[in-house]
Every structure is written in C-alpha cells, then in structure tokens.
C-alpha cells in the first residue's frame, strides 16, 4: 500500500492507476451537494489555498462539539458521489484538486477532468464510518457551518493513513466500468445455464 501526502504533485497522481490501494495523509476538505453548487456558482477565492493540490471528500459527518470549543468526528464514511457529477469537473479545474474521495464512482465528465487536471477518484469503504472517523486526526477548521448546516459545511481536516482505493485514475481508467463489464459477462453465462 502506497502512502501519499498532501500537497500532492501531478507526477504522483499520474503514477497512480485503478486498483491501487493508498493510505492518504494530510489535508482533506469535506463537501457535498450544497458545497459543490456553491463552489461552481461563487468560486470563492478563500477556498483556493485550502483546495490547491489537496483532496475533496464527499461526506456528511456525525460530529461532536466539545466544551473547550474544539470539534471531533464521530462517524464519517463516504456518501454517494454521483450527485456531484454536474459540478465535479468544474471544481477540479478551478481549484486544481488532486483527489476526490467518495463512494460509487462518477461519470464521464468527471473522468475527463481527472485526466485533464491530473487527479484521481479515491473510493472509501462505505459503512466504515467509525474507522474513518478514527483516522481523522484533527478538525482544523470549518467554513460555512451556519449557512449550510453541519452535514453540508466545508470541514477542513487532517487525516492519517486514510485507507482508499483508486477506482478512477488520470488515464481514463475506471475500476467500476471494468468490474461492471466482467460481472455482466459472468451473469449472462450463469443465466444461460438452468
């Protein structure tokens, strides 16, 4: 398993291919539906240094706010990524994001942007909310918390050995497409027998 740290250079990304398992270290910014719409429509400058060569995570976490004011993550698994398909390519290009973490894979438009920008789609284990929250070492900051609400806010976190699988790479490869094709062929074989 490869360890990768942010900021991630384009060279590192180009060296990754579908099926690679990685452990991510460094800065991750959480964003889902409202956040993606906001990034595309408003393109705020203050997000640029946060996202540059960093990673976006499609996740609406369960968080705890402690008495001394600091935050921690209780459960933080991936949510289904395809909802961000209309926005993701634009976000990748505007902010030079090197990775998108989520679940279920994304479409052609995102795949093309991964190739153009030099980025990967990184799949997290669905349902592993407790483990993934454990790998969040620090909640650095949160933006737009009041405006968007906790599940939709931009949580800026530091992760340590966050386990991920590259399922879409910067060379047009998609593990989702490969597995779908081979499993469909096998299903047809099975259906042909009684």
């Amino acid at each position: 398993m490869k360890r990768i740290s942010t900021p991630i250079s384009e060279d590192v990304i180009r060296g990754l291919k579908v099926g690679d398992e990685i452990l991510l270290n460094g800065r991750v910014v959480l964003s889902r539906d409202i956040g993606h719409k906001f990034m595309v429509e408003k393109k705020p400058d203050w997000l640029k240094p946060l996202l540059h060569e960093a990673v976006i995570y499609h996740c609406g976490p369960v968080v705890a706010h402690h008495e001394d004011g600091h935050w921690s993550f209780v459960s933080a698994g991936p949510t289904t990524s395809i909802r961000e398909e209309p926005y993701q390519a634009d976000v990748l290009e505007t902010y030079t994001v090197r990775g998108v973490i989520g679940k279920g894979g994304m479409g052609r438009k995102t795949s093309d942007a991964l190739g153009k920008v030099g980025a990967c789609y990184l799949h997290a284990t669905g349902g592993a909310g407790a483990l993934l929250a454990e790998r969040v070492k620090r909640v650095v900051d949160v933006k737009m918390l009041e405006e968007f609400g906790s599940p939709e806010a931009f949580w800026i976190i530091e992760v340590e050995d966050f386990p991920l699988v590259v399922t879409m790479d910067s060379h047009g490869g998609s593990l989702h497409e490969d597995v779908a094709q081979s499993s469909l062929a096998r299903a047809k074989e099975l259906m042909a027998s009684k």
Partner: protein
Amino acid sequence: MTACSMPNLTSLGTVESRSVLPKDWKADLSDLAGLDLTQPVLELIRRTTSRLPQDVIEAVVANRNLEAEGSRAANTLDTMLENITLADDHVSPLCQDTGTIIFWVRHPFGLSQRRAKEQIRKAVAEATAKSWLRPNCVESLSGRNPGNNMDPFLEGHPVIHFEEREEPGIEISIMLKGGGCENVGAQYRLPEASLGAGRDLGGVRKCILDAVTKAQGQGCSPGILGVAIGGDRVTGYERSKEVILRKLGTPNPDPKLDAFERRLTEEINTLGIGPMGYGGRTTVLGVLVSEMFRHPASFFVSVSYMCWSSRRMDLVLEPSGSVAYR
C-alpha cells in the same frame, strides 16, 4: 494465507453496564395497558446502531478468509472488521447513515397498538436527540428535515408493523436500513422477456442474478439479499425485508428453497463484484428467500438488498418479566 480471527468485541457485561434500561426493570405483561415500551426500545436502538449481529460478523470473517491474502477484497473486509470493533468499543454508530428505521412488533391480545406506536416513536425521537440516530426523515418535495426522524402526517416513519399472535410474550424486531442499499432493491414481474425469465424457480434465479449485477457495489457489498416470491407489489417488498431478519447460516424451513439459497449464494460469489465493487469473490454474505401466495395473473419477485452493515436485533419481553436482546 493468514487467517483472520473474530474481532474482539466488548463483553456482554460491558454492553449491559451501558444500558439505559434500569437494572431492575421488569416487563409486567399481566398489565398490558400499563406497559411502557419506551425505555426497552431506546436500549434496543442503542445496541443496534453500534454492534452488528454475531452471525453477520461471522459471515464477514468466514468470507474474508476465502479471499486471497493481500487482495483488495481481503483488505476491504479487514477495514470493515476494524470498523465493527471500533464502533462497538466506542458505542458509536457503525455507519453515519443510520437508515430507515423499521420495527416489527409481535404481541398478544390486549396490547394497544396505538399506545405502543406512540412509545416507539418517543424512543426513536429520543435516540435521535442523543445522536444515536441521524435525522433521516425529510419532507419529500421540499427536502425539509424536522430533525427528529418523525413523519408527522401519515406517520410513515419510523415504519412499524404489528402482528397479534397467540404466544404471551412480546417480540420487537428492529432493522436499520441505509439509503444506499435501499436504492438498489428491485421488483420483477414474471414472465420477464428481457431476461428470459419464466414463472418458475429458474425465472426467480434470473431476476436475483440480474438485481445483484445491476447493484454492483452500490449497496455497500457484500450484501444480504432478501427475496420474496409472490404476494402483491406491497406485500412482496415487505416480506423481502422481513426475511432479512433471519440469522445467516440458519436453514430455510423449505428444503427446496434452502438448496436454492445455497446455490444462489455460491453462484453470485462467482460474479467477481466483490466488497464495495472493487472486484473479488465476496459479493454477498447470503441470500434469504420466502415464498408467498399470489394472484393467478401476477407473479412478482421482490428483492431487497441489505448492506454488509446489517443492523438488526430482537427485543424479547417474556411473561416472567425478563428482558432479552438477541
């Protein structure tokens, strides 16, 4: 190949010590009108969100040991097992999607279903306020979230099924079913020409193979498939969920369907979809099938997909007053 062993979970004593139910709490089933189910149901929710049933954990371990060491599939199942251990240890939600909350209440004559429903709804609202459950019930068109998991109008959520029965005890089953897996369920009407599926068990088999292939890893595989053969469109889907309450590894009471379940499980695990759809052997942990009667003109096959984090549990109140969580 290094075999992985069962995760080391907290002892039953530790689980008991964290209970929200007072130690001396007894169910007085001689006074069904005065019975308050709120606290025992709250405890049922607490246990279900953070600890998977033993049979599900055993199935994950057994399948993990059939995957090639060092493969993505083995590593992903290891991640799932580590998550199971952590959630249990921290009493934190296994998954941030605590799902649609479904109850089945089996009770003797004399229990007021209206009052039981109020008590169960109160327990769900309290569990939501304690962050054991995520507020997962929103108004369909506006998306507005009341924040307490309550459907205020039709009382459609939480889902509560009641059945009066002869036995004196009360049994309440709960299932927490996440949105990702609910989205990949499917219903077929036989004959289904596009699959070449006729009105027989061979046709049912083709529907199941089609459903699981279309689902890929989207339902958080390895899944557990609940299948109802027959019924109408509503009762078929209902049964396809209820059948998932059956423990994995227990035989189907119908020998014909038992053999069918085993065969399907083996066949599906040659599709190569694997954990989370990354490829690999383990696509399902089990297939559970139930046959119903049907209208002569209709032949439905209803398939519900349960994610690997199959959170379900039974609360049993005995006439003796004892309370058990199984």
